[in-house]
């Protein structure tokens, strides 16, 4: 073995070993474990094949979790993209206000998800919560025992907290996308009479394709990774109404000691995440064939 090879192996192996052992290996094991029934830490595992996976087809809680996950993805995703694109446009005009907003907009992203969850739990507190009292004051018909204990309201509260947490990053992302668009293209469009909404729809929006694609992948990953927020705000209640995959997995694995079933939830959501990512990538992330030509219309 020459010195170059020895050097490569020496430098690479610590990272590859740690990564392979603690990331790659457990990922493969997830699939294997999902085919057994076993409780807690015992090694007494019984092979049940795909039963863990198929039994979720009849599990109403799993349906709720899936619905909530889709709700977060579609409603949350739409809200995030809509707000982020508008805010990114507004931030292009320099002023004192934009400076302040740019400084604080990532605060919800850099504090712990646990803190976000606690803050939002407090904001809805029926006796001192800022949002709850404020909402009451302007006449929103909020349930009087607080929002987080009532099914529909609790889901809405989690959706809002999710968007609040994530938005700043996407404003930054779309801002970078907007700045990357060639000013000449926009000017040319202006001269040709395309301005305002039309210019946005026909030129800016298609040209943001690469940023949109990244945004969608991140949103899918954010949504599938939702755990601490729900855990802190509602503990997946009331009555499993705000359950998501990871909270359900945690509940199955650690509260009910059903490790096999919990692994099956993990496999299930892994597959869903991959499928969603692939589908949305295909639908949204299209590169307009020739951006120059569409700009000249």
């Amino acid at each position, binding site marked *: 073995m020459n010195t170059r090879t020895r050097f490569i192996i020496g430098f690479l192996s610590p990272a590859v070993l740690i990564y392979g052992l*603690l990331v790659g290996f457990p990922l493969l094991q997830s699939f294997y474990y999902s085919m057994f029934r076993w409780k807690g830490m015992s090694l007494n595992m019984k092979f049940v094949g795909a039963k863990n996976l198929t039994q979720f087809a009849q599990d109403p809680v799993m349906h709720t979790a899936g619905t909530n996950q889709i709700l977060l993805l579609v409603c949350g995703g739409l809200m995030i993209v809509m707000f982020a694109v508008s805010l990114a446009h507004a931030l292009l005009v320099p002023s004192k206000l934009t400076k302040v907003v740019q400084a604080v907009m990532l605060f919800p992203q850099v504090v712990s998800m646990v803190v976000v969850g606690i803050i939002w739990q407090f904001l809805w507190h029926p006796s001192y919560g*800022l949002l709850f009292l404020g909402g009451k004051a302007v006449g929103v018909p909020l349930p009087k025992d607080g929002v987080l204990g009532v099914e529909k309201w609790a889901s809405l509260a989690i959706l809002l907290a999710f968007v609040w947490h994530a938005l700043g990053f996407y404003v930054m992302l779309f801002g970078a996308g907007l700045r990357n668009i060639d000013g000449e293209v926009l000017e040319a469009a202006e001269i040709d009479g395309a301005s*305002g909404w039309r210019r946005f729809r026909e030129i800016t929006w298609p040209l943001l394709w690469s940023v949109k694609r990244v945004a969608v992948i991140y949103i899918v990953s954010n949504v599938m990774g939702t755990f601490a927020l729900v855990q802190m705000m509602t503990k997946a209640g009331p009555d499993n109404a705000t359950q998501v995959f990871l909270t359900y997995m945690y509940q199955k694995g650690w509260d009910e000691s059903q490790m096999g079933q919990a692994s099956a939830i993990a496999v299930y959501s892994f597959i869903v995440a991959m499928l969603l990512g692939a589908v949305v990538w295909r639908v949204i992330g299209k590169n307009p064939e020739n951006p120059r030509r569409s700009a000249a219309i």
Partner: protein
Amino acid sequence: MTKFIGKLLLLVFGISIVVPFLWVLVSSFKTGNEIFASPWGMPKNPQFVNFRHAWFDGEIGSNFVNSIIMTLGTLAILIPTGAMAAYVLVKYPFKGSKLILNSFMGGLMFPNFLVIIPLYLLIARLGLLNTKIGLILVYVAYSLAFTVFVLSGFFEQLPNELIEASFLDGCSHSESFWKVMFPLAKPGVLVVAIFNAIGLWNEYPLALVLAQDKSIQTLPVGIANLTMTQQYSGDWGALFAGIVIVMLPVMIVYLIFREQIQKTMLAGALKG
């Protein structure tokens, strides 16, 4: 008109972010009664004692120390390991180096909590459950993807001539890395370290499962427990103070390194 709407939108956005944080900060100086009686008001006498209660009675103090150990401990292993791997993968391409780089990237997107069950069993079998080194190793593993990804970008930009020149000066492969290339990548390494530090400081799910023991709990786990217990014991002021202790350090670090952090976040997103 559009300008006006834009301004209004920004104003609402800014307020929606600043007000909740300010509210938590102000509440942390109030007595429990004040929090309930005048949720919107300012504290009459700032209750610094809340912070002492949170720090000592609520175990936030020891959680804080644990969080510092976990964060710095992880960085101490992560940065050299990640930098060495990133460097070799871009500057010494070999058959399969692309594949290795790509499998690091693959770990970038999936939520790591998905593999918690096999990971938990593995850590338990290694006898590392509820140990600092156990959580640190897991943190290193799950931070490697991002670290290798960003650092490989930095090393790629450094010219190969520098390596060749260092060989002429008599450096070995590893000497040319540690003496020439690594120091040149320092700005990048610093940003990656800060970025990782924020994420590690905030991490909750893995710490919840792998470090449940009171003596090694980190801040997010501690504050989550405090929230659940404090609601019964009722020291609301201390609870708000605890939240401030968790969030203030990252907010300050973020404000100091804002531009570099934003650039790194975008680099990670836009290159992918």
